[in-house]
Each structure stands twice: as structure tokens, then as C-alpha cells.
């Protein structure tokens, strides 16, 4: 296992106004990530899928040490990320990189592409100017921004959305990391070039033995790209499994509903849709017991009080649901 996440929690304190502070003494927290565990193998593309606000991006940020966990541990290659001092963390960042969601917002508009991509090398030090240029051109070439010399001197505004995303990926590759957290890498780009970005990630995994944590809300692309997928709901992982097992034999009512909610690009396909009412609960006061119980069509009384834990239902297939309405022995 390359990455091990154990009982990870992240609570964000809720900011209160001065008057609210005087009236109430209790502090409240947003339970963004609440006790999740998973591990990622070397060379694996692991998908973290859920709706907005379920804690998937927070998990990604925790995994690369951008924010500190409230509780729990993250081990990368045997080394615990959360206990590292800043200097050690900086060293680790050579191995761990991140691709952010919005390629336009994550490139400095006044910095040429070549300059932006060379920043990680300069920050990590010990490279001559010549070496930096070679590395940057090579990174541009890897993401198919060719000819690289051409893109080196361009500004972000001169690039299309897909090209910008590839530039951002090039920046995350320039240090030759082992592990990359990709936070919605295809959400902001056009349909016709999404597959290009996905193929690029797949080729990096094969060619450079890289490992990816892919954060996405798009189940169809997760199925295309990932090996294993974890489904998150309201700060918890509700189901983990190999993608085909998860898509053909979903066990959690939320997974099942989520899968049936995705519009299928085939007009002949008859949809047997499970319509789930309501919306994602507040994470300040999450529901007791199973967090999905107020919306779950299969909820039983036990679901309102007992918090489910991940149970093994098949080969590396785990589900956090007490009634397990779809489970066949």
C-alpha cells in the first residue's frame, strides 16, 4: 500500500459573530470528513466519488498535507504525513503533487506557462537553469502540448480550457512525483476533450508507474478511469469496491440511487430510477446513526441510532449499511 488513511477526521470550526459568541458558549463544527479509512495501492487509480460538500476535496487536501487532520493518521509509503515538520513536508512534496479543479484559477495569469511549470523545480532547488528548461519542455511534451517550445512562452489566456488543464497537469508532473491527487480534473473542460485528459492520466499510470487519487462527482468517468472507487456521503465513506463490482452490484442504497441518477447517453436504455427526496444534510449537525437514514427508502429504526461501519460483503467490497437490502447470501 502506498497510501494508508486511518480513521481520518477533519472538523472545521464555524465562525461566529461577536454577539453569537456572547450568547452561546458552545462551539460548533462542520464535520467535513468524519472517520474515514482507506488505502491506495501503488500504480492504482483510486476514485473518491460523491456529491458536492461530501468531503471528498477535503480528503484530497488532507492526503497531501495541505491541511492538518483533526484526528486520524495518513501514511504515505510508511511515513506519517500529519506528524511531519514543515521542512520534511516540503521534501515529501517532491513525491506528492496535486491537480486542482479549476485550471484557469490555478495558473497565474501574468506568468508564462513555462515559468509556471518551472516553479516547483525552483522551489525544490538544486537545478540549474538549463536543467529546469529541459525538464519543463519534457513535461509539456508528456501532456501533448506540442511543440513544447511553442507553449513555453505563452500566457494562460492564450490556451484553451483543455490545454490549460494539461499545463496544470504538466506542472504537477515536473517533479516526477509518485502520487498525484487529482481534484475534479475534467469537471471544467469540454466534453470532447475530457477523454484526452483521462487517457493522459491512464498513460502516466502505465508509463511512469504513478498512483492517483481521483476526486470526482462524475460516476461515468470514474468507471472509465479508476480501479477501485469509494463512495462518500456527508463526510463518510459508505461503500468501497472494485469499479465493476460497485457498478454492477452496488450494496448501499445511496450508491444504488447515485448510479441510477446518472443520465445514460443511450435513448434506448430504460431507466429504472430510484428517486431520492431531500438534499444532503447539514454537516454541522449531521443526522444520528446512518447519515443517509432520513432520505433512505430502506431505512429501519436501527439506522436512526446506530452508526454503520464498513462491512465486508465481497472481494475487497465493503459497505456501511446495517439492513443491506440488496445483499444476497
Amino acid at each position: 500500500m502506498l497510501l494508508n488513511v486511518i480513521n481520518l477526521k477533519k472538523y472545521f470550526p464555524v465562525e461566529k459573530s461577536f454577539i453569537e459568541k456572547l450568547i452561546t458558549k458552545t462551539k460548533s463544527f462542520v464535520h467535513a470528513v468524519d472517520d474515514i479509512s482507506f488505502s491506495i495501492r501503488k500504480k492504482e487509480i483510486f476514485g473518491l466519488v460523491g456529491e458536492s460538500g461530501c468531503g471528498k476535496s477535503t480528503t484530497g487536501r488532507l492526503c497531501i498535507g495541505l491541511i492538518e487532520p483533526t484526528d486520524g493518521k495518513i501514511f504515505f509509503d510508511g511515513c506519517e504525513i500529519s506528524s511531519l515538520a514543515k521542512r520534511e513536508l516540503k521534501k515529501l512534496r517532491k513525491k506528492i503533487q496535486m491537480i486542482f479543479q479549476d485550471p484557469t484559477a490555478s495558473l497565474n495569469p501574468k506568468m508564462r506557462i513555462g515559468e509556471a511549470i518551472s516553479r516547483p523545480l525552483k522551489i525544490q532547488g538544486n537545478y540549474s537553469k538549463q536543467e529546469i528548461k529541459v525538464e519543463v519542455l519534457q513535461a509539456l511534451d508528456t501532456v501533448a502540448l506540442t511543440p513544447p517550445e511553442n507553449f513555453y512562452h505563452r500566457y494562460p489566456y492564450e490556451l484553451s480550457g483543455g490545454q490549460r488543464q494539461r499545463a496544470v497537469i504538466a506542472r504537477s508532473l515536473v517533479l516526477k512525483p509518485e502520487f498525484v491527487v487529482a481534484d475534479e480534473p475534467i469537471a471544467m473542460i469540454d466534453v470532447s476533450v475530457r477523454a484526452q485528459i483521462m487517457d493522459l492520466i491512464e498513460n502516466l499510470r502505465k508509463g511512469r508507474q504513478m498512483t492517483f487519487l481521483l476526486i470526482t462527482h462524475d460516476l461515468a468517468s470514474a468507471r472509465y478511469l479508476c480501479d477501485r472507487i469509494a463512495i462518500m456521503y456527508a463526510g463518510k465513506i459508505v461503500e468501497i469496491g472494485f469499479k465493476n463490482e460497485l457498478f454492477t452490484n452496488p450494496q448501499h442504497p445511496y450508491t444504488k440511487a447515485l448510479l441510477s441518477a446518472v443520465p445514460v447517453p443511450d435513448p434506448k436504455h430504460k431507466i429504472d430510477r430510484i428517486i431520492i427526496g431531500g438534499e444532503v444534510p447539514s454537516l454541522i449537525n449531521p443526522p444520528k446513526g446512518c447519515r443517509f437514514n432520513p432520505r433512505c427508502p430502506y431505512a429501519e429504526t436501527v439506522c436512526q441510532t446506530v452508526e454503520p461501519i464498513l462491512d465486508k460483503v465481497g472481494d475487497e467490497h465493503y459497505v456501511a449499511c446495517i439492513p443491506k437490502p440488496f445483499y444476497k447470501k
Partner: protein
Amino acid sequence: MSSRNNTHLLEVSRLNVEYLTKKGTVKALRDVTFKLDSGTALGIVGESGCGKSTLAFSIIRCIQPPGFITSGSIFFDGVDLLQLSENKMRKMRGKNISLIPQDPMTSLNPVMRVGEHFMEMIGNHEPHLDKAERKKRALDILEKLGIPSERFKDYPHQFSGGMRQRVMIGLALLLNPKLVIADEPTTSLDALVEAQILELIQKLTKELSLTLILITHNIGVVAEICNRVIVMYAGQIVEEANTLQLFDKPLHPYTEALLASVPNPIEEIKKLNWIPGSPPNLLNLPKGCSFYLRCRYAFDKCRTTEPELINLEERRVRCFLYERGE
């Protein structure tokens, strides 16, 4: 001008829209021509910048400067909307043609109670109704949408994204319009809520026998809701067909590539295709077919001559591959 041998609810012909920017003229729509029968659910698909939202706003004549409708006609129920006075057009909007906008967060007035939006709209179009009647109509539609009546007095910020989109759908359907244009109605929503809203739109279009124009980049949504599809590229219609035909056998190379680039969640896919390059700059369109630089079938003629929309049986396509009726 106003009378015409008319069997179509909407007839857009040779519509051209331009945005006059500092850098030059952006040709957002080029000779867009299509007809829409009543009862049809028409999907308009394309990538960002292909002109699909511009088309929606043109039909309700809400193109703001620097955008201008430079030529063409839009016949709705036998009346050319482009010839109407602004006053008459105002009476059309909401009453006969309505729009469900893309972003429900910014489309409601934040300092007006949700109910007031409904009351104001009925008041503007049917001033003879008294307050009690207006309220009754508003509550009727809220009930259809699954919004509890006690939320009538709430402000938009007290509503979640999905509920706000319900409110927008309610406002669009309030006056029983003949044509509803939905501009990416579920793009900003989460998967489960998207499913709720799609289900609702489908149910209501059936119940109220509405004619729908659905603008989206999501191929799956089109497959599910629409029975006819127009594919747009760089401000032009490149293909129009029945949904089943289009998915079964896409004719235009762009449609073919677009459909092949979308992953299907219900089957395992080994390989997806993607379209190299990016759409042309609308400020400076290339000669010939606007897709030829990205097209795998392009030949010499595509570089020099712009293809016309070719009528085939029940469908249209803008591509030289189908000349001579093949």
C-alpha cells in the same frame, strides 16, 4: 408579415447573431434555421461557446449589447418575434415563451420573497386577477413542484439549490406557456437532485403537453428527455435528427466524435475517443467547414468551401460526405 402557412409552433430562419467586441465581430450564430412542432422536446447540444445559449436568448429576444440579432426571422405561432414592439414582446415572455435559466442562484431577486416573484409575474400578465386569485394560482403551481405552501414567504437564500431550481421551473410554467426553453437546467445541481429535477421536467412536459427546448452539453440528459436533437458547432447547426436516429447512426463527423467521447455509466468501456484540437475562434473563422481542422474525414473541398445543411430523410446534416443524398 404576420400570416403564414403555419403548422409549426416555432420557425427560426437564417438567424444571425453577432457580438461586437473590441477585438472584432464574434459571429455567435450563423444562419441558424430550424422548425419546431408543438409537443416536441428538442435538445440543443454542443460545447461551450457553440452558440446554444445565444440561441435561447435570441428566441426570447434577450440578447444584450454588445450582442445584436443582425438578420433572420423567428416566427412563433405565426408571428415574427423580431418585428414585435418591445412592449408586445414583453407580453410574450413568460406568457407564451418562458425560460428556465442556467443558474438558479442568481436568477431570483434576493430581497424578494419567493411568493412575491410569482405574484408579480401573474400581476404583470393578468392584471385583472385579484390578490386572492393570484395567490391561489401561485400555490397551485408550487404544489405541483413539491414545494410546501408554508415556504411561500421565505426568501431565496433560505432555499437550497434544488429547491431554487424548482422555483424557477414554477415561474416558467406559471402562465401555461406554449414553449419552454430550459438553458442547462441541471448543470449546477448534484446528481441526486439533478435526477429529481429531470424527472419533474419530464412529468410536467407530459402533463401540461408543453413544447420544450432543452439546451445542454450533457448528452445523457438529451438521450433521456428529448425526442429530437440539434447539434451545434461554432455557431452553426451541424446536424438535426430524431434522438433515436442520432444516437443510432450519427452522420456528422462532429456528432460521431462527440458521442464517442462520452463514457456510459452502465457499461464497461475499454476506449473512449476524443476530438483533437479545439473549436475555431469565432472572431476569425477559417474558410471552409468550421470543423475540418479537427475532422478525421476532411478532404480538400472542406478546406475551401463551406458546406450547406443537406436535407436527408427526416434529418439534416452539414457535411460534404452526404452530398448527392447519401
